[in-house]
């Protein structure tokens, strides 16, 4: 993982920046090649090869920070010059660039992915499409497979110099079903840094959402118990992720700002950010500021244990960087499993709601936990069973209240991937049941 060679491009850029007057400098280079195939509306529609390079340069001059980026490896003078220009007016640096550290050993590269070419990806895609069509030929099926090989390197003027290689394999399948004015979307996707993956299981997972939606079940306005599927947790996690962001804490906008060490959730709720899971979707050994990654307990048995920090925010707040990079991005979020099975959880509910997808996530006022959001895909629970899909229902409540009112977590967990505009994470989550929330039906 840790290679020390003097001729790396990132080190040359750092050298250039110091020569041009920077007091300290860092360079990060990411280059990757991706192959992907895309099935839509029942057929193979397109395939793509892509090549990307991105060079990010950050400098500190006279205690002020400047940044610039380029896609052109021959534009080193240009990118360094622009970073130095930005530094003239930049914000005051509240950090020093980290020196070389021993990096944690993690697996991010699976050579078995290298020979995977488009024809095989097409074959796997067809297999999932056929499975979905075999369940219900009226579903307009879709599938996506993508393989990426990435080289990352990092160097700074404090002597840190790292490089790493990553493979990534992404497989998704799903479809849409239209009945009159009723349109149902459902899909399932897995992304990981190794090849071994059961495509049939992914298709079956997507089929499960259609199966539960074969009937439409009316629902009445009122307060009812709600089970969030791992995917459906997005509405709660969005608020929590904003609240745990060290920058929001420092700026005073996080409702968690003075709750460190206090109980903020049910005692069965433990949330860890773990970048060191072998082959995890966001697994890596160092962040984009050259800070080694670490496993970080955010909430332990309901007690708030840590916020996430980058170098600069940590410097301002009197904290330490948690290795979450300049943007404080979560890596692999992990919620500990509970002690009941999903089936038991369901059986215990006489009248409730299972929520899986939302429309318009991130709008409104997520930071204080409040949500009032349209359920895109949700199911009515009746006498311990799924009665059918609910339509035109809004779910309203407060994410922090919901976390305190957790009544059960499932033993089963699954990986989910959120890549929307406001929520961006990968995670391994159980289903979570919450006491009562307001459902507004039309």
């Amino acid at each position, binding site marked *: 993982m840790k290679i020390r060679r003097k001729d790396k491009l990132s080190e040359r850029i750092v050298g250039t920046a110091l020569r041009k007057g920077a007091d300290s400098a860092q360079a990060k280079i990411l280059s990757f090649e991706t192959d992907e195939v895309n099935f839509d509306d029942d057929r193979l529609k397109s395939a793509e090869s892509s090549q990307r390079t*991105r060079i990010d340069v950050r400098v500190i001059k006279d205690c002020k920070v400047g940044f610039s980026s380029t896609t052109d490896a021959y534009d080193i003078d240009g990118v360094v010059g622009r970073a130095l220009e930005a530094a003239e007016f930049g914000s005051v640096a509240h950090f020093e660039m980290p020196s070389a550290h021993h990096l944690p050993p993690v697996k991010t590269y699976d050579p078995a992915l290298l020979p995977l070419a488009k024809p095989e990806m097409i074959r796997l895609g067809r297999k999932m499409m056929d499975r979905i069509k075999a369940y219900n030929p009226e579903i307009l099926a879709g599938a996506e497979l993508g393989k990426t090989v990435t080289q990352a390197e990092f160097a700074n003027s404090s002597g840190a110099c790292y490089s790493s290689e990553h493979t990534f394999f992404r497989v998704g399948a799903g479809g849409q079903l239209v009945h009159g004015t009723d349109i149902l979307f459902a899909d399932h996707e897995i992304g990981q840094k190794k090849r071994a993956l059961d495509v049939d299981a992914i298709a079956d997972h997507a089929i499960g959402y259609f199966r539960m939606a074969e009937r439409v079940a009316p629902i009445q306005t009122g307060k009812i118990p709600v089970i969030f599927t791992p995917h459906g947790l997005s509405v709660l996690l969005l608020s929590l992720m904003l609240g745990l962001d060290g920058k929001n804490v420092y700026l005073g906008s996080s409702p968690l700002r003075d709750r460190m060490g206090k109980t903020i959730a049910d005692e069965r709720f433990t949330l860890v950010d773990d970048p060191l899971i072998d082959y995890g979707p966001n697994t890596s050994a160092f962040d984009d500021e050259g800070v080694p990654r670490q496993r970080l307990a955010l909430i332990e048995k309901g007690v708030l244990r840590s916020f996430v920090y980058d170098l600069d925010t940590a410097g301002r707040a009197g904290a330490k960087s948690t290795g979450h990079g300049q943007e404080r991005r979560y890596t692999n979020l992990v919620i500990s499993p509970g002690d009941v099975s999903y089936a038991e959880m369901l059986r215990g509910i006489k009248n409730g709601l299972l929520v899986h997808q939302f429309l318009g996530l991130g709008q409104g006022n997520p930071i204080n936990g409040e949500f*009032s959001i349209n359920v895109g895909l949700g199911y009515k629970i009746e006498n311990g069973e799924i009665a059918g899909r609910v339509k035109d229902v809004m779910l309203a409540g407060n994410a922090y209240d919901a976390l305190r009112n957790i009544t059960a977590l499932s033993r089963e967990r699954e990986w989910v991937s959120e890549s929307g505009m406001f929520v961006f994470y990968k995670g391994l989550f159980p289903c979570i049941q919450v006491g009562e929330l307001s459902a507004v039906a039309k």
Partner: protein
Amino acid sequence: MQDRLQEALKVQDVEYADIRVEDLTESWVSYRGPELNKIGSARTMGGIIRALWKGGWGYATFNDIGDLRKRVREACETARLVGGDKSYFESVEPVTDAISTELKKDFRVIPLAQKKDLMEEYNKIVLGHDRKIQTSFVGYADSFKRIWFASSEGTFIEEENPDVNIIVTAMAREGDIVQHAFETSGGREGFQTVENFHEKAFQAATRAVELLSAPPVVGGAYTVIANPRLTGVFIHEAFGHLSESDFVYENQRMRDLMVLGKRFGVDGLNVIDDGSLPGGRGTHRYDYEGVPTQKTYLIKDGILTGRLHSRETAAKMGEKPTGNARAVQFHHPPIVRMTNTYMDKGSAKLEDMIKDIKLGVMAINEAGGTTALEMFTFNAACGYMIRDGKVAELVRNVTLSGNVFEILLNIDMIGDAVEWLPPGPKGCGKANQRPLYTGLGGPYIRIRNCVVGGRQ
């Protein structure tokens, strides 16, 4: 560049191929609270090659424009893996054109320091407004893109595409209640569009503080008046996306649902997409397939009369291309997108729309919106209750949702003037392509029996 692109295209051996290369320079400044949040600039160069073979598309995208022939071959090989059917691709007249822009104040020659100072002024207005202002976000971004497009049919278009925008957001807090308000500005005309924004910054701060003491709206079905900006978002999100033919063209059920000639609303309902509208945020002379943009009626006199097309969707549906194939950036192929979409004005006066509402909600301005075909949801920035025909108290958490087909039929009055949303950093998102700048507009409208979300 023309020679380079056309030379590279000579190695193509498929039915159709094109290359789009973009050179983008951008800069940004933002404040979050009293501190400078981000400042910087970047240069991005890259391109995409599209190859069509027997109904299958092969794409090659790249940052390194060194070996275009290799990329063309790669795209063609990929297309041959995918194809196996029949291609549908409407033909258009090849064109050669160069589109340059005039910036009144060229943001490229304005020093970063000046951009920063201006944002600092706006930020100070927000932060100094009231002790209840918790924090702020003031963001500035500019970009200047040069685009070269060449196709195997002989089209070559060179285009300059500038954009500058700002957003000023105020966040107020009292106890556990946090409220936001924002204002945006910008456009293609130059740096002057983001100057003199002090008054708007003040308004955002004022509204955020006012909302703290506003009660949340009580959830339920109401008669709702949407103001013009919200109408613009509604018609874009709830209906406009359904007019994008890539949702429809291979989906028989959607085709049945969106049959031209079907009634979608009252006689006075007209919805238009116009990529040729002078000065619009979504205006272009050509789309990203070299098709001239045009004015397209989507709904005319309440009847579905048209939809938005790329060359492929037009051919599939036996209709004409409308110049709506657009892409956010070079690493995306163009897909069917809206340009400037608006509901046309009707004849109703606002006071006549309100006067016979016993209990209703006036929903004001957009705070985002989204849709999954039939179902939509969007948040208003704020709202006022309407009681006994009069505008009453300010309320917050006004979220509208429902089934678009029902809601369109429930529009019973349409106001007498169209207003456009001010440009800003937020654009439309579809298929991971975001933000695409579009124009959104409309008049005041009245919707009967519309679900407004809130806590019970």
